[in-house]
């Protein structure tokens, strides 16, 4: 590894700033594209957070500050921005940056299509942003865009304007970017793995990329179909698809939309789960407990994710309740497997708690609350009572929004040294963690209670029932505490980019291949690769020699256990020993 130390060049040393800009604009390097995704999605995330602060300011007390129309527009854009422009692309950012490194590839299978994905994503985002400027404002039918609210049926006082069309087209573009990205991820994982990197040796983050890619590939086109129908419905077909007055069916939209948007929940949370798994595998100083069961649980979640979409539509009366209830309960099983595996990994581990690990543990706690409230919802009678209350808002924010964000923040702290060659500041990181952790729990746990008390979602004003004003004020305070935490994070990013402590190629004693190259990696990623004999090649490189004589030491190395394997112990090769 010492040979790699001097390999990194500084491509922009002495070059002028425009050349640097041009280099980033025209890059097809998966690392640069990943970093651009990260910056863009982070900026959109801050915008989405600002929207949430506006909403919380409005709801802090009964009575209105902003009009219902503005509030509708704000909560619609909060959801759309956070889902389509923050959570999905942040996942894509880490998949772009880390996955090719983790499998020892030079780049993605189709680097230029990768760049195309990014620019389509940015253009789609710009379209959504520009809808603020058009007459009638942005889309304001919620991120779920249920017709007939999206249509001009003659009954709505202020029919949605061009902003709605821009929303539909923008999301089609974002979906197209996702589809191209997923094709790229899948082919890269299937075709570009380094020699020795069998499927059963893929790091868990790469496995989540694979399953996420399949989910995107098979579900996003259905959303595209729905959006296309929605667009034609508004422009030409005059409600023939979704307006009951003209022969359309509102439920058809809901079925098509949730056929995508339920898997989309897993598209957001699975990469976060993968990051957390990798982080646990490093900072507990143990191999992840039950590697194969983790993979199988992942595949199980992916498969079940396709047959539960209608649990979002229990109260419509248009779906077969017992099937979707049962299937939804089933998802708790693979999710529980993952939960217990993470806990078992920490059990008796030599745990250390840098910020990345703190966020991973925080992820477990948040995801536990989110997951269990999800099981509540799966029960049809409970769902009937809680539908469209703040309980739902609390539940889905706990799981796919804030748990996923914690996973991605863990990824930021974990891979920042690899991306920029510098550590993030740990003190600021811990301040960030505690502010955010306290803040989001204040927000979303109170929302669960508020929902149980019956407060409906998506309203800009409410009756001051006993306790509601207090709880709403607590939520608002929590939102501002969380925002303060994110400001600390933002400061930390710029502080660490400038003054961060320098990190070597393997600052965390990592186990996966991305730590086998310099920080940041050269354009071609690797000058040489270590021998890959297990799912933890760098661990083998570091300790394999010491452990190979230990009969109690076993690693999961591919076909171990089904009769045609290479044996179960770590066997570092000659070359690995020389390099180490």
């Amino acid at each position, binding site marked *: 590894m010492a040979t790699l130390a001097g390999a990194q060049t500084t491509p922009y040393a002495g070059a002028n700033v425009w050349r640097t800009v041009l280099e980033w604009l025209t890059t097809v390097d998966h690392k640069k594209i990943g970093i651009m995704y990260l910056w863009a999605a982070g900026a959109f995330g801050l915008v989405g957070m600002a929207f949430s602060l506006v909403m919380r300011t409005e709801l802090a007390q009964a009575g209105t500050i902003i009009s219902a129309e503005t509030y509708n527009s704000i909560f619609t854009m909060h959801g759309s921005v956070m889902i389509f422009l923050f959570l999905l692309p942040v996942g894509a950012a880490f998949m772009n940056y880390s996955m090719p490194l983790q499998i020892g590839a030079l780049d993605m299978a189709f680097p230029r299509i990768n760049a195309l994905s990014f620019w389509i994503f940015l253009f789609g985002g710009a379209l959504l942003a520009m809808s603020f400027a058009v007459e009638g404002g942005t889309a304001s039918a919620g991120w779920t865009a249920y017709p007939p609210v999206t249509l001009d049926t003659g009954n709505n006082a202020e029919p949605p304007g061009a902003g709605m069309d821009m929303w539909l087209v923008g999301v089609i573009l974002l979906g197209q970017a996702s589809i191209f990205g997923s094709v790229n991820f899948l*082919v890269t994982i299937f075709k570009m793995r380094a020699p020795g990197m069998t499927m059963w040796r893929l790091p868990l983050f790469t496995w989540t990329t694979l399953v996420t890619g399949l989910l995107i590939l098979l579900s996003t086109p259905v959303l595209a179909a729905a959006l296309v129908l929605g667009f034609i419905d508004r422009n030409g077909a005059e409600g023939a698809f979704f307006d009951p007055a003209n022969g359309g069916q509102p439920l058809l939209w809901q079925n098509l939309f949730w056929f995508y948007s339920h898997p989309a929940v897993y598209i957001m949370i699975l990469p976060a789960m993968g990051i957390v798994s990798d982080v646990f595998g490093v900072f507990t100083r143990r191999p992840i407990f039950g590697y194969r069961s983790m993979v199988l649980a992942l595949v199980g979640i992916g498969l079940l994710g396709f047959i539960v979409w209608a649990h979002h539509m229990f109260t419509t009366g248009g779906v077969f309740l017992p099937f979707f209830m049962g299937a939804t309960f089933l998802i708790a099983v693979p999710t529980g497997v993952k939960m217990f595996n993470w806990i078992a990994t920490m059990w008796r581990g030599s745990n250390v708690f840098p910020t990345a690990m703190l966020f991973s543990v925080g992820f477990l706690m948040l995801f536990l609350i989110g997951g269990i409230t999800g099981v509540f919802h799966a029960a049809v009678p409970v769902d009937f009572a809680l539908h469209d209350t703040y309980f739902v808002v609390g539940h889905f924010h706990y799981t796919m929004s804030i748990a996923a964000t914690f996973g991605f923040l863990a990824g930021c702290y974990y891979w920042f040294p690899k991306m920029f060659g510098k550590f993030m500041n740990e003190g600021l990181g811990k301040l960030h963690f505690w502010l955010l952790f306290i803040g989001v729990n204040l927000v979303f746990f109170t929302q669960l209670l508020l929902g149980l008390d019956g407060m409906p979602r998506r309203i800009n004003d409410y009756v001051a029932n006993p306790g509601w004003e207090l709880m709403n004020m607590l939520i608002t305070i929590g939102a501002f505490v969380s925002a303060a935490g994110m400001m600390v994070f933002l400061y930390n990013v710029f502080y660490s980019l400038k003054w961060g402590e320098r990190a070597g190629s393997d600052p965390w004693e990592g186990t996966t291949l991305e730590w086998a190259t310099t920080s940041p990696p050269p354009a071609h990623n690797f000058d040489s690769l270590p021998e890959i004999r297990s799912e933890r090649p760098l661990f083998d490189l570091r300790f394999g020699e010491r452990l190979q004589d230990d009969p109690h030491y076993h690693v999961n190395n591919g076909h171990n256990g089904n009769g045609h394997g290479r044996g179960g112990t770590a066997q570092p090769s000659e070359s690995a020993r020389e390099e180490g």
Partner: protein
Amino acid sequence: MAASAVPHKRVHPIRSFLVGDEPMTTGLWGIIFFIFSEIMFFAGLIAAMLALHSDTLLWEPTNGGHRVEGDHLLPILFTVLLVSTSIPMQLAAFAIRKGNRKAMLINMAIVLVVGTAFIINQYFEWEHADFGISDGPYAATFYTLTGFHGAHVIGGLVFIFAQWLRGLLGHFDAKRNTAIEAATLYWHFVGFVWLLVIFPLVFFLS
């Protein structure tokens, strides 16, 4: 690559038929995954049409317009023509796998001519239909589905034409023919979607 010295691994006959005996390139994997996403797109549209057809009282065009009885002849003829172009397209792939660029170009030219004729016929179908896109669910699905299928046919034709020009310039041989294999798979998909799904549904659900 010392590929000639190493005997080929036995390849499944269906795989051999579809993509040849050479190892599959990343490009070919990419187009296969992409076709799966396209299948899901059309699955969404077709599911919408079936749902609308089964549950809607107002299915028929609201302006009273309908397809004239016996008017199915031309659509059936062009359906047969479009689907049968899968044969010359596959022959083009077979030809280039053997390195026969001339036979490939001839077969692709047949595909281009017939495919273009299909699109022209679709234009006249749209011209002669006595209902507009705003005349209820049947009319809207008719234009949406044939329109998106037509767009995919045009996309396929443009891609095939680009590869045809590359062939004229002397590109492609027995080893390097990913684009031709990809175009072939895509063309099969376009014909398949039309023959098995869109044509029977759009033309007989009225």
